[in-house]
């Protein structure tokens, strides 16, 4: 993948930033917004846009650590199942163990982190390739969710809990604040810290990173744990929004999240990607779905459009990158 430049290089050479995948994608998004906005006057309203933010927070929260993971050349397919497991355990620990709800939330986050940590251990200690490890735990975690829940839902949470998922804070959906904070933290961590640089180094050449004395295994362990933790947080937000738990929650999230991240320009081969790109990818998918629906395009046609956009935008970005002769 020598034709893909390192992000550091691209950043320093000023005029090329315009041709960066994320910038291109943002431009495409901008144009799409204008067109869809012209077609339907209910699309480009603050209310609608904020509401879309609310609906996409769960996927967004997971997409951030997934960006880290894909930058290192890894993948985590188990996130959807962790969402299901955490949702079930939130309700279960609250109702059956009698935990106070704040403790149950903390417990849920710990479970999510543990599930991710377990992936990380398999990947770093046993050296199971990430795709294999997480495809196995995808089945396992979903199975645990089903087994523990015995197909039961837990409902009837105290009113304050719904605040996270259903209310506004300073005019913005409450969970969107969580996402915004997470984006800023993740962005800084990736761009401005040694940790972030380590991730790029692993993705570019893991062996070299190891020989350079970088803590490769520790970094990997951290990001997979983080992925589980954020999936747990996502489960809390989701349960708060829909007011119930089901063992099939989060099914298919892994593909939505991966689509978001790769649409945002993170290379599946590792070494390339930004949080900013993931955010644009997230906005693009959600707003396209929303805009198309408001314009009267039906669900089946919408997913055809999304699939096409995923392929074409990656194509356009890679063609542009190649044209500048790297």
């Amino acid at each position, binding site marked *: 993948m020598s034709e893909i430049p390192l992000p550091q290089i691209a950043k320093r050479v000023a005029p090329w930033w315009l041709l960066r995948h994320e910038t291109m994608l943002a431009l495409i998004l901008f144009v799409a917004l204008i067109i869809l906005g012209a077609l339907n006057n209910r699309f480009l309203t603050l209310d609608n846009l904020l509401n879309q933010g609310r609906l996409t927070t769960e996927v967004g929260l997971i997409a951030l650590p997934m960006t880290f993971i894909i930058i290192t050349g890894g993948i985590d397919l188990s996130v959807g199942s962790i969402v299901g497991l955490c949702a079930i355990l939130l309700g279960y620990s609250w109702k059956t163990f009698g935990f106070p709800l704040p403790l149950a939330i903390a417990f849920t986050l710990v479970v999510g982190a543990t599930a991710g940590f377990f992936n990380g251990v398999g990947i770093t200690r046993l050296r199971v390739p990430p795709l294999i490890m997480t495809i196995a735990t995808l089945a396992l975690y979903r199975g645990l969710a089903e087994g523990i829940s015995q*197909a039961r839902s837990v409902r009837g949470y105290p009113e304050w809990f719904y605040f996270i998922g259903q209310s506004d804070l300073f005019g913005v959906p409450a969970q969107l604040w969580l996402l915004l904070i997470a984006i800023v933290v993740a962005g800084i961590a990736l761009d401005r810290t040694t940790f972030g640089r380590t991730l790029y180094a692993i993705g570019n050449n893991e062996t070299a990173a190891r020989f350079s004395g970088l803590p490769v295994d520790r970094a990997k362990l951290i990001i997979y744990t983080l992925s589980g933790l954020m999936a747990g947080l996502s489960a809390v937000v989701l349960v708060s929004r829909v*007011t*119930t738990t089901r063992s099939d929650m989060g099914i298919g999230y892994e593909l939505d999240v991966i689509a978001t991240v790769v649409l945002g320009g993170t290379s599946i081969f590792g070494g390339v990607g930004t949080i900013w790109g993931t955010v644009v990818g997230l906005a693009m998918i959600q707003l396209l779905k929303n805009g198309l629906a408001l314009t009267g395009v039906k669900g089946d046609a919408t997913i055809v459009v999304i699939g096409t956009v995923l392929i074409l935008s990656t194509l356009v970005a890679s063609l542009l990158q190649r044209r500048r002769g790297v």
Partner: protein
Amino acid sequence: MKLGLAIALMSATLLAGTAYAAEKRWDGADDLPVNPLACSAGEASAAPAAKPYDGGQPTNAPDKAGKPISLVDVPKLIGIGYFNATTKGMQDAAKALGNVAAKTDGPTEAKIDEQIKFIDNYITSGVDGILFAANDPVAIAPVLKKALSKGIHVVGYDANSTPNAREWFVNQAEFNGIAKAMIDSMANEAGEDKSFAIVTSTFTTPNQARWIAEMWAYAQKCHPKLKWLETVEAQEDNNLSFNQATTLINKYGDKLSGLFGMTSVATPASAEAVTKAKLCGKVAVVGLATPNAMKPYVNADCVKSVVLWNPVDLGYAATYVMRAVVDGKLKPGATSVEAGKLGKLNVVNGSEILLGAPFIFTKQNIKDFDF
């Protein structure tokens, strides 16, 4: 050595799994009370005390009585035969009424969070009424309440939400009515003291879970000698349902005298499994299904009775109910509603409209249906 360890671990896991013996009681996973009907049809079942209206109401809904309205229908998922049939019923009703424009749209998989997004989008785009079949009765409630709060009328069909999140629910057949029809057919075809197993979609699908719970209660009450072997999941997939039914046949052999199919996918697949095992007549197949898929098995005398309501009628009734609500003809406290060619439908359980008793397709009448 590692291999030995792996095998030991495998068997340990198996044994551990076995320790969790099959559940004793199926309660539909929602802890709602079961309400089995009386055993024989002649025996008048105690009519439940009329419940007061418990649905919700839209705030400041514009008065569109007699005026054209646009509806959106968001089923559990699009692209399956069952909801195609309900859509057809809605289009028929829209045509008959003349002042209704109905559109069906929804997720391509039965996922509750996707369904919520669709409803949310239609609230934004502005419609006069929303028809829905819920993937989860509780999870769908917040978005439906949001619709009500924006003055949009909300009517459910096929799969309910919590009552106060919608105005009315068109009930295709009461859970206990379906359960009675299913268990009575099984006892009749397999025998009073025989054993049966169930193939369902997933344990979390609300309607299937409720039916199984009611079947359990009714069997306990009226056919106590029927033996309940086990229930297996098969998603909504043909081949998986076939494999699961085959596994049950192989596992129980002569002990198995009946199979219930809880979905329109599982029933024909179970019938196919019985046919392939050359057990027609020995293993009774009873289930919910659509007629076209069942014709080969019914005509071959492998399946005697298929239980279902007419989904086209269900969609038709839902549209008429919505029109009546908008026109102010169906108000809280009403006891019945006019639904075009279906005639007068009764209000039950406070805010539900009952389509009628479940229909039983047999060799004599199945050729008259095409869906």
